């Protein structure tokens, strides 16, 4: 069942979505055993920014029909502390083969910046350490100058990816935003600019209002808006993955509402090379492993 993805040999086609599985916290809560029977064939870090971020004020969660809105705000300790404190631990994750041998879980580091200089600095910094196997670019971030999401505009996306592409020889994955007019056009722009793969879908922009008795009736979420995930977005993910896979020749990481092997199979049949699991891991930390084992021929 092992798959080749951007030159990485993955034991199975199921990885995690960025920001949905804090492996260090999970190991501390669920036991060291998680570090050597890791559910995913590669580990994607949460989004790392140049400077530390505290994240959004609470409330950060809202349950919806068949899903949830998160407004977490990308809390992270910043690039320097990530490289010195977290990267060594995150690159030592292992999974067991059916024969019982321990194999390494490649580390994919997800980065985000609101201007080109930041993104370039992040990509350059991730190019050096051998512990990082690939870089994923989170482009669902407003450009500080225009206020528009970098990844929502094909031309802006092309410019950013073109500029950082020469800074690393590692696989560069562009995590597309679904909050755009034409995701396939954005995917093609990323491919033209030298991306090795695209991943989608990120969460759909969403919000929830404070209880109806409150005046003024603002957003319930401390961050104002958030992203919808879970089974509620599965059909949207399938359509966007199919559209993108038909438009590019680079590999596609498909995600969005995958809870069972059948959902992963749908995304693969729609053109994804591998799939990512996010919200389902909140409900069951070993969901990724169950989904992978169900994909066995």
């Amino acid at each position, binding site marked *: 069942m092992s798959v080749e993805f951007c030159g990485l040999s993955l034991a199975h086609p199921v990885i995690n979505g960025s*920001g*949905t*599985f*804090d492996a*260090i*916290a*999970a*190991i*501390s*809560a*669920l*036991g*060291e*055993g*998680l*570090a*050597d*029977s890791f559910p995913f064939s590669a580990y994607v870090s949460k989004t790392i920014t140049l400077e530390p971020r*505290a*994240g959004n*004020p*609470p*409330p*950060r*969660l809202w*349950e*919806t*029909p*068949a*899903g*949830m809105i*998160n407004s*977490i705000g990308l*809390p992270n300790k910043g690039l320097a502390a990530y490289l010195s404190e977290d990267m060594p631990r995150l690159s030592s994750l292992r999974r067991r083969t059916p024969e019982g041998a*321990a194999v390494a879980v490649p580390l994919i580091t997800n980065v985000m910046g609101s201007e080109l200089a930041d993104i370039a600095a992040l990509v350059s910094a991730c190019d050096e350490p051998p512990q990082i196997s690939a870089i994923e670019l989170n482009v669902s971030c407003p450009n500080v100058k225009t206020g528009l999401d970098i990844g929502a505009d094909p031309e802006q996306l092309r410019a950013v990816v073109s500029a950082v592409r020469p800074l690393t020889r590692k696989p560069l994955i562009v995590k597309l935003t679904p909050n755009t007019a034409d995701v396939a056009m954005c995917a093609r722009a990323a491919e033209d600019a030298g991306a090795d793969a695209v991943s989608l879908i990120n969460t759909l922009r969403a919000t929830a209002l404070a209880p109806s008795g409150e005046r003024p009736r603002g957003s319930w979420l401390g961050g104002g808006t958030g992203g919808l995930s*879970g*089974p509620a977005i599965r059909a949207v993910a399938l359509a966007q993955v199919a559209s993108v896979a038909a438009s590019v020749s680079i590999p596609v990481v498909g995600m969005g509402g995958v809870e069972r092997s059948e959902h992963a199979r749908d995304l693969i049949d729609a053109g994804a090379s591998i799939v990512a699991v996010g*919200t389902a*891991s*909140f*409900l*069951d*930390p*070993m969901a990724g492993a169950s989904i992978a084992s169900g994909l066995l021929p």
Partner: protein
Amino acid sequence: MSGEPLQRRELTVAAVERLGAYHLLRIADSAGPEPLAGQFAMLAAAEGWGGGQDERPFLPRALSIARRQDGQTLFLLEDVGPGTARLCALQPGERVLSLGPLGNGFTPPHDGRRALLAGGGVGIAPLAILQDQLPGTATALLGFRGSSHAPGAALLRDAVIATDDGSQGHRGTVTELLAAELESGPDAVVYACGPAGMLESVRALCEQAGVPAQLALEAPMACGFGACHGCVVPIRGGGYSRVCVDGPVIDACRLERVDEHAGAPA
């Protein structure tokens, strides 16, 4: 190699009892890990989870472990939303999905101080297992809205009760009972769990009295094991802590105030 990680398990409901407005859910769990007082589990019904009010619930609910007894794990529930409604409707023999025990528990008193337990509403749950685990019978002060909820006090031994409407025990708040206790003997450690407003009163009272307090916080959670960063509370000095992995029991001195959004799951 370091053993199997804690995993979500499918367990069977052994019994559901009523304590006034509350449901006491008994789950057969003879093989499960022994919880520390103050720990919690993420709980969902194996069937019929979703499709309730507003087509919810979707996420599992974080619930304090109320007791371990005769191979069963006990949870105290109140029907306040689609998740708790489904859990309250569970029948013996039905299956639940449980991930736990999770989080940091209470730390027993030190320096010969006595334990003072202060609980409000469904928040009395973790104080029951704490009373079980402490030597003797720790003083328990419990606050309820009125006579329909006061029967919950049967979960603890020798509880002193306050009700908002005065229908049972002291008319007023549990914090008033606690203030009187601290006046007569400040050599105590306070263990509290309840609604955000009550916890903030307890925190402020203990700070003023110079008494250490451990607060069991509640927050809506998606995962319960640190993955989602959704359940944060602001902490003293800036920044946020996750209730699931940095709590749910937290030293009161780490908080500037108890966040108004902290509360039991619906």
